[in-house]
């Protein structure tokens, strides 16, 4: 994301809401990334020359003369073997320092799998939990939601499933996870000696909620790389989808969209479905703690 020499810098923002800014700009593509006063943002609406940007970190402290730079590309993730064993934030930047991952830059949320090219799921993933294995078997290539109340030990169950499943890679997408839970996962994976099989994209409760919107697509892009390009078995854990949906509602609300059912945006159903897009050889476990 280096600044190109001929790039146009805008310095006049017309409107600022809690999550979005609107300004006049031309030649901007839909879904494109931008930087607003040093904060990362994404184009969510274009009306003539009025461009609306969703600022991931929130608009606190952004002034009407902040510098706005358009990157000309949608969010991407560099995929490569170097992803394994690393922890990233919602933008795909390594946490705890370390060198950025080298590899091919891929758009997140890209094209969908041709259903005709899928294989029929038939392989059991043994979790060692009788309630799952005997009654509600997880099959390789399936997606399974876990519904739970906040007082239930869902993260422990998911971590158990992750460790026992014979997957080559485990991708953890944490949305609105508490720092304690994040450290729980991290320590557990470290102690189990499986760090080299783990890729983590984490948005904790300390981070701005809107950033969460990037996490599922980041995790799935990495998963698709390992599954489709490398032919590995990948297990994806996304926790927790309710907080993800909350972030969608926040953005839609701040853009003055008409709320749909239960004040969720109308598109939430589709996004949830899309975010659980699966690959033929990719395991996936998704947690949806409340009924949606």
């Amino acid at each position, binding site marked *: 994301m280096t600044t190109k020499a001929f790039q146009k810098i805008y310095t006049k923002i017309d409107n600022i809401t809690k999550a979005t800014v609107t300004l006049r700009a*031309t*030649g*901007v*593509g*839909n*879904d*494109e990334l931008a930087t607003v006063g040093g904060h990362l943002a994404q184009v*969510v*609406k*274009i*009306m*003539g*020359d009025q461009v609306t940007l969703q600022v991931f970190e929130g608009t606190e402290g952004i002034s009407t003369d902040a510098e706005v730079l358009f990157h000309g590309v*949608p969010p991407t993730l560099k995929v490569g073997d170097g992803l394994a064993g690393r922890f990233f934030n919602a933008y795909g930047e390594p946490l705890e320092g370390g060198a950025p991952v080298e590899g091919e830059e891929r*758009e997140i*949320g*890209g*094209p*969908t*799998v*041709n*259903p*005709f*090219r*899928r*294989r*029929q*799921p038939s392989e059991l993933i043994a979790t060692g939990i009788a309630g799952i294995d005997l009654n509600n078997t997880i099959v390789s*290539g*399936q*997606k399974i939601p876990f519904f739970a109340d906040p007082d239930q030990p869902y993260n422990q169950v998911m971590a158990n499933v992750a460790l026992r499943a014979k997957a080559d890679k485990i991708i953890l997408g944490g949305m609105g996870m508490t720092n304690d839970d994040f450290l729980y996962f991290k320590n557990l994976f470290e102690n189990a000696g499986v760090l080299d099989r783990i890729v983590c994209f984490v948005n904790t409760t300390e981070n701005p909620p809107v950033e969460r919107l990037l996490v599922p697509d980041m995790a799935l892009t990495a998963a698709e790389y390992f599954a*489709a390009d490398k032919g590995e078995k990948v297990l994806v854990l996304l926790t927790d989808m309710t907080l993800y949906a909350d972030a969608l509602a926040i953005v839609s609300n701040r853009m003055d*969209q*008409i*709320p*749909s*059912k239960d004040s969720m*945006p*109308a*598109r939430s*159903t*589709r996004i949830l*479905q*899309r975010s*659980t*897009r*699966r690959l*033929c050889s990719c395991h996936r476990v998704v947690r949806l703690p409340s*009924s949606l």
Partner: protein
Amino acid sequence: MKTTGKVQGIISNIVIVRTEGAVSQNEICYITIGDVKLMAEVIKVIGKDAYVQVFDSTRGLKIGAIVEFEGHMLEATLAPGIISRNYDGLQNDLERMESLFIERGTKTDPIDYEKLWDYKPLAKVGDVVTAGDWLGEVKELWVDHKIMVPFVMEESYTVKSLTEAGQYNVNKVVAVLTDSKGEDHEVTMVQKWPVKKAIKGYVSKPRPSRIMETGVRAIDTFNPIADGGTGFIPGPFGAGKTVLQHAISKQAEADLIVMVACGERANEVVEIFAEFPHLDDPRTGHKLMERTTIICNTSNMPVAAREASVYTGMTIAEYYRAMGLKVLLLADSTSRWAQALREMSNRLEELPGQDAFPMDLSSIISSFYARAGLVHLRGGATGSVTFLGTVSPAGGNLKEPVTESTKKAARCFYALSQQRADSKRYPAIDPLDSYSKYLEYPEIVEYLDGHIENGWVKNVMEGKTLVRRGKEAAEQINILGDDGVPVEYHEMFWKSELVDFVILQQDAFDDIDANCPIERQKFMFDFVMEVCRKQYGFVEFEECSAFFKNLINLFKQLNYTVWQSEEFAKYESEIRSIVASK
């Protein structure tokens, strides 16, 4: 001269286009982005601005992009070679897409334009014909695929010339027709039809007068669906909607099956892709895939194409109906389609109706269900489209708007109950909540009298009453305790359990029990009713359960045994002797 326009605004997959000329509602247009073209449909026009819904991702689209309007609505291509294809919602052939991922803007031909077909003419020179009349036929797999006067040619025409029998591809002109003004029209084997309009081209649409066998006892015996009828299956998550639909698609007594996977999980479709080419159709001996066409817009594919997918499926079904075939259209699930409608309505900032669905949801659903039906064609043949949709009510709430609107439109209602699914009583069709309005049709009653046995519907009603009284008895027993009620209550309860276990429950994974032909259903139902009509005069309630548990076990063995085999006869006589001895 095509109308063109420029992109003026983008809100997710709604694009606002400033047009330079006339556009019509629901017209198709293509938006150029780089070297691909994205298909879109006009859904609202305000002044010079057309609001279009894009059937693909609008990522990277910029203001000023060129838009070309096509001058027609979304159309299906109708020609030989549709059966056993796997399409997406816009009728792109998925099998022809080579890559694992579907790249944006990928288009493939719905049919093979090169393939040669054995054509022979059916009409004669000088015949007066109109839309839907048969001009010739080709052999598509095992189907006599009729080449018809295109449905758009609704006037009266005279056949001027016909091509001789021979091998041709679909673009061959097979007939020249002259209209009343003396102008000639060339007809090929391919025609196009806007999917949102119903195909007419038939003489009349009578009330359905016969039932369509599905091999599922809870449907055929208790709540049969008519050939040319409509029905729907609402059921909460995990209640077995898809397994039931798959069973019906395998066993139904139809010539062709069109399956629309609308917003469902892709793995469910993969099962059909993987299994159907190998399974035999028990009725004809052909492979199941040779009678099945799949339209697949799974949950991860573009949402706007979902609406298109159900219409494309219906159009294909209507096309084959016009050839005099019995077509069964299955859509899984119409709720996802309604969600797509809700999303669009929200984007257009329309005021929301109940549960934020658009206000016209009910009329959209009923006009769609109205396209099914039995038709008399010119020339005497009949064809039918039977439509069975599933609905996934959020949280299993059968009072939500999609279920309620569908209930008004469909004639059969197969309520899957969570309670039955939880107690592993499959198929989880609730015998008391479900209904079939066809049992009230005098035509159907007469048909069942003639084809099954005299007084069949009366017997079925008696069976339903038995189940209802059994449930009431069970509630009384629960409240008052086992010995707080008369023994007859226990007897009544166990008789209803017998009907439940033997008739209503069916093992979809057992080769024999999975598919129960109507003759066997008649035997089993009559047999069970015969046993239930007898008053046993138990003294202690404990006797009751032991007696009926034994009977249920034997009856279940009967269900798992080959029809009228020696073993079958053995179980039958064992049951009879037990019943007689008491």
